[in-house]
């Protein structure tokens, strides 16, 4: 099903003409209104007027997460604050979040793309959408919400948490579509079984899952346990939020990128050279319609490849394959971005704790479990069990407060964390994704 058949099936030539026109307009705007971009373009000796074709895009400098951080909070906004109607934020490496803004038109555009994404996953007017993405600074909840309303569906803004109540509500309200992280979907299935509810008896037909990496095996498990069709959705707040790319229910093989609003590239993560279709590299996005927070060649650090083959669903939009990894050490735990460096700064705030730690991520049942191993040095050691337990609890509480994600803290003997060539292995990810 298509929400905007005209734009989702544009012939390639027409699409590229629109992309170029919109790109040029965006470049003129950021050059005039965002000092960061003007300076970067000048350093690269390129002016907006030099960009005469889509191939010229590669002449523009990249934008990194660090640039957004350096311009915290509103330095990258291209419109005055009175035009900004919404602000979202995501976690960053130093504890400062990355802040993004939207004008009323940006929200309308995002809602349209999210409506397209829901439609691609099988939702339509008349559906009841159980939206279990978190509402708040995170773009998931509100992003899906506005899309669902734009689509004309009935949206239940259930947000995350309180799983037993969610099961009661989805059953009593007769929800037909569910949106949440894939790991939460499986958690729901587990809790439903515990409380004696069988998804077979519920009315779900489709699920649109994203915000964390997942696998084909996991899709099959979700489809089997939740009795619905599961598609993958992609997005990141820096670029827009959920709805940047989505799988179609027809093929379920790669995510169609909303190319009339974003130009997608795959580049070599080290050389920065654009890579041809089919080759794995880092995904880079340029927004070409956003007003408040345009991004030019934004390095997502997500590893994937592009597939230009025609799709059975009829969309002409290029497909992005499942994200297979990251170029940095960021972990996504239950949909929350976690950097080892952030954990480190939380640990270091506790007096006497040394920066010798390791993060172990497991998937127990269907939930991500984060365990932090912390070496016990003589500064924090005590002959009393109680004092060490207080230390464990304190670390765990601080992590929970900082990330909103609970972690098990395990004290370990010094030097138990493997150090290879002087550099500790900080992360052990045991999840099979």
């Amino acid at each position, binding site marked *: 099903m298509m929400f905007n058949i005209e734009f989702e099936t544009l012939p390639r030539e027409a699409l590229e003409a629109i992309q170029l026109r919109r790109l040029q307009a965006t470049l003129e705007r950021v050059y005039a209104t965002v000092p960061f971009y003007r300076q970067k373009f000048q350093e690269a000796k390129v002016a907006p007027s030099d960009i005469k074709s889509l191939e010229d895009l590669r002449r523009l400098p990249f934008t990194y997460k660090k640039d957004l951080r350096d311009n915290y909070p509103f330095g990258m906004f291209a419109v005055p604050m009175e035009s900004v109607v919404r602000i979202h934020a995501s976690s960053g490496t130093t504890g400062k979040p990355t802040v993004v803004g939207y004008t009323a038109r940006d929200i309308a555009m995002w809602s349209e793309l999210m409506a397209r994404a829901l439609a691609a996953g099988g939702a339509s007017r008349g559906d009841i959408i159980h939206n279990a993405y978190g509402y708040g600074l995170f773009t998931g909840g509100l992003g899906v919400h506005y899309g669902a309303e734009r689509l004309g569906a009935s949206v239940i803004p259930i947000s995350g948490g309180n799983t037993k109540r969610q099961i009661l509500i989805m059953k009593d309200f007769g929800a037909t579509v569910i949106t949440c992280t894939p790991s939460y979907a499986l958690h729901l299935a587990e809790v439903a079984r515990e409380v004696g509810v069988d998804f077979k008896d519920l009315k779900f037909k489709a699920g649109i899952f994203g915000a964390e990496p997942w696998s084909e095996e996991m899709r099959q498990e979700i489809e089997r346990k939740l009795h619905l069709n599961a598609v993958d959705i992609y997005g990141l707040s820096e670029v827009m939020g959920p709805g940047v790319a989505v799988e179609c229910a027809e093929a379920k093989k790669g995510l169609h990128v909303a190319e009339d609003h974003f130009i997608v590239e795959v580049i070599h993560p080290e050389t920065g050279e654009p890579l041809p279709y089919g080759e794995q590299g880092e995904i880079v996005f340029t927004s070409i319609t956003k007003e408040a927070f345009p991004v030019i060649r934004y390095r997502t650090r997500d590893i994937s490849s592009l597939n230009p083959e025609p799709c059975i669903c009829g969309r002409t939009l290029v497909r992005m394959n499942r994200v297979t990894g990251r170029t940095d050490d960021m972990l996504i735990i239950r949909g929350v971005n976690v950097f080892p460096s952030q954990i480190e700064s939380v640990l270091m705030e506790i007096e006497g704790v040394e920066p010798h730690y390791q993060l172990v991520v497991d998937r127990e049942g269907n939930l991500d479990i984060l365990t932090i191993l912390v070496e*016990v040095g003589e500064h924090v*050691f*005590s*002959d009393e*069990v109680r004092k*060490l337990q207080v230390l464990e609890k304190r670390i765990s509480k601080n992590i929970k407060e900082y990330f909103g994600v609970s972690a098990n803290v395990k004290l*370990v*003997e010094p030097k138990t964390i493997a150090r290879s060539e002087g550099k500790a292995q900080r992360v052990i990810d045991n999840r099979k994704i």
Partner: protein
Amino acid sequence: MTAKGETIQMRVEQISVFLENKAGRLSEVTRILAEAQINIRALSLADTSDFGILRLIVSDNDKAKDALRKHGFTVGKTDVVAVEVGDRPGGLHAILEVLRKANVNVEYMYAFVQQSGNNAVIIFRFDHLDEAVKVLTESGIKVIEGKTLYGM
């Protein structure tokens, strides 16, 4: 001799070692101590589901600490009190009654391997050591000096 000097003499030095709750860690400690020719006078192990704290009174504290540290263990040092307890029903109870009446809190305690004459020896860890020693000695309870204990 001042009263302060007396309590210092009455202290017994205990070392504690952080152990992960996994097979072979305790025997690693005993191996290191054996190789360093150190005699264990008393020990107690407190544990949780993932870690343990081994407390030891040994013949040579400094040597034991160095040996354990060299092998990567986290080692702490605490002062405890060794008390002679009559080896008969109610012997320990009488001491705990004295402490309770004086409102002295016991963090933990454990028995010493060797006897002192016909009496047993109990190691006490107090939050307020000086106060505890004062209460005990004033009640006529025999507190054993560190140097006596290490050689027992």
